[in-house]
């Protein structure tokens, strides 16, 4: 990977108005809508913002494929894998900021936790949001940019709701939620608030990470293959 490119990519991410809207404005709005009382919900919504941010790398990839930028990069020593990693890392920096903003808002509204727990939740959110970058890349290497921007955030929002990130789900809904990647990520993100880690959640995150990375790698290889 190239440090100059990474720094420039982070600057580009923070220049785009869209980044702010989706990841720094939307999660606080959701927080107000669902009402902030429990720390669990604050952390879940922070995770939602982080997932929106990291999947955002997909829109960038789709746009830059269409603009011939990825082709231009093939006339440089930068490897296509390093390009994808650069996009993901820049998106994860935005994800980190989104987490900080949402958690800070929760704290400002009276959620009271020890600093170590805040920090633990923030780190947990950041780590478990990372595999969703693969979902972004998968979409970015599969779809056109219009489709990616139109589809990705609604899909993420749906996954977040059905995975129990906005309101706790019981019964049949609660059972089916356990199948979704957002459920496992949510459980692990909230783990610092509770004692012990749910083995089912770990299995969910591991399996979904494998699936998403495999899907992204499949589309990536197809896109970068020389024909």
């Amino acid at each position, binding site marked *: 990977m*190239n440090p100059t490119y990474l720094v420039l990519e982070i600057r580009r991410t923070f220049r785009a108005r869209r980044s702010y809207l989706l990841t720094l404005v939307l999660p606080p709005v959701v927080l107000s809508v669902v009402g902030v009382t429990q720390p669990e919900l604050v952390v879940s919504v922070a995770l939602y913002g982080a997932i929106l941010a990291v999947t955002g790398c997909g829109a960038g990839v789709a746009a830059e494929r269409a*603009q*011939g930028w990825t082709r231009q990069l093939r*006339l440089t*020593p930068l490897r296509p894998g390093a390009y994808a990693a650069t996009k993901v890392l820049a998106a994860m920096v935005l994800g980190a900021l989104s987490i900080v903003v949402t958690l800070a808002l929760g704290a400002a509204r009276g959620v009271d936790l020890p600093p170590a727990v805040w920090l633990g939740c923030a780190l947990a959110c950041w780590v478990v949001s990372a595999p969703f970058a693969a979902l972004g890349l998968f979409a970015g290497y599969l779809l056109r940019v219009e489709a990616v921007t139109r589809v990705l955030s609604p899909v993420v929002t749906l996954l977040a709701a059905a995975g129990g990130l906005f309101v706790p789900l019981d019964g049949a809904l609660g059972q089916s939620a356990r199948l979704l990647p957002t459920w496992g990520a949510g459980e692990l993100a909230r783990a610092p608030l509770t004692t012990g880690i749910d083995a089912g959640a770990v299995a969910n995150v591991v399996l979904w990470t494998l699936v998403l990375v495999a899907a992204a790698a499949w589309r990536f290889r197809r896109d970068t293959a020389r024909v």
Partner: protein
Amino acid sequence: MTPAQETHPPALDVRGLVKEFHGREVVRAVDGLDLRVARGEVVAFLGPNGAGKTTTIDLALGLARPTAGTVRVLGQAPADAVAAGRVAAVMQTGGLLRDLTVGETVRLTAALFGTGHDVRASLERAGIADLERRRVGRCSGGQQQRLRFAMALVSEPDLLFLDEPTTGMDVMGRRDFWSAVRADAARGRTVVFATHYLDEAELYADRVVVVSRGRVVADGTAAQIKDAAGVRTLEDAFVRLTSAVGTSAGGAR
């Protein structure tokens, strides 16, 4: 191979190159193309739309794989020559990020090639040093093309491909672009440019290679090509050369 050939392989060495695209039907974009370009030559790759110019350049840049035949660039495989910055290209469209500034774009390109590249010199030689802070999206077509040229110069390539670099530019844009390229080629860089502007081939190339249907149909100086075809203008020669293949392939006459 003699020692001299080993140390100085040609800038471009294309032998029996074939490229087929397998879609609903098979398109033979390049059909047994042979071409050697010596170092320091400025060669115009002239041919009608669909002749296979872009495909040949893609193959020489390692962006596509040949169906048959070989391409060597400065004695290396294309992908290796590209990664080493020894060959660069100005594509006709795309390849720019509109939200970057001109300076950021060239600095990024330089950084990707490693340290020690002179960004300022590339901007100046491309004639866009005064546009350094301008957003790429706000540059005219001609300015964007000179930006692509500056990006291509960053790694100080020995061989430079220009694929229809002035298509869609106005007269002033074309003149500015070519004066930048010409000043640069005077320093000894090998340049291969695809064009369908006959005047560009005649004015700026040492040698004209006419391609039609994926093959070389004439190769020489503009004067030699006109003489061989028995006509007075390059345009007449071009029409005769490129349609002769068409009629024989079509079976007419």
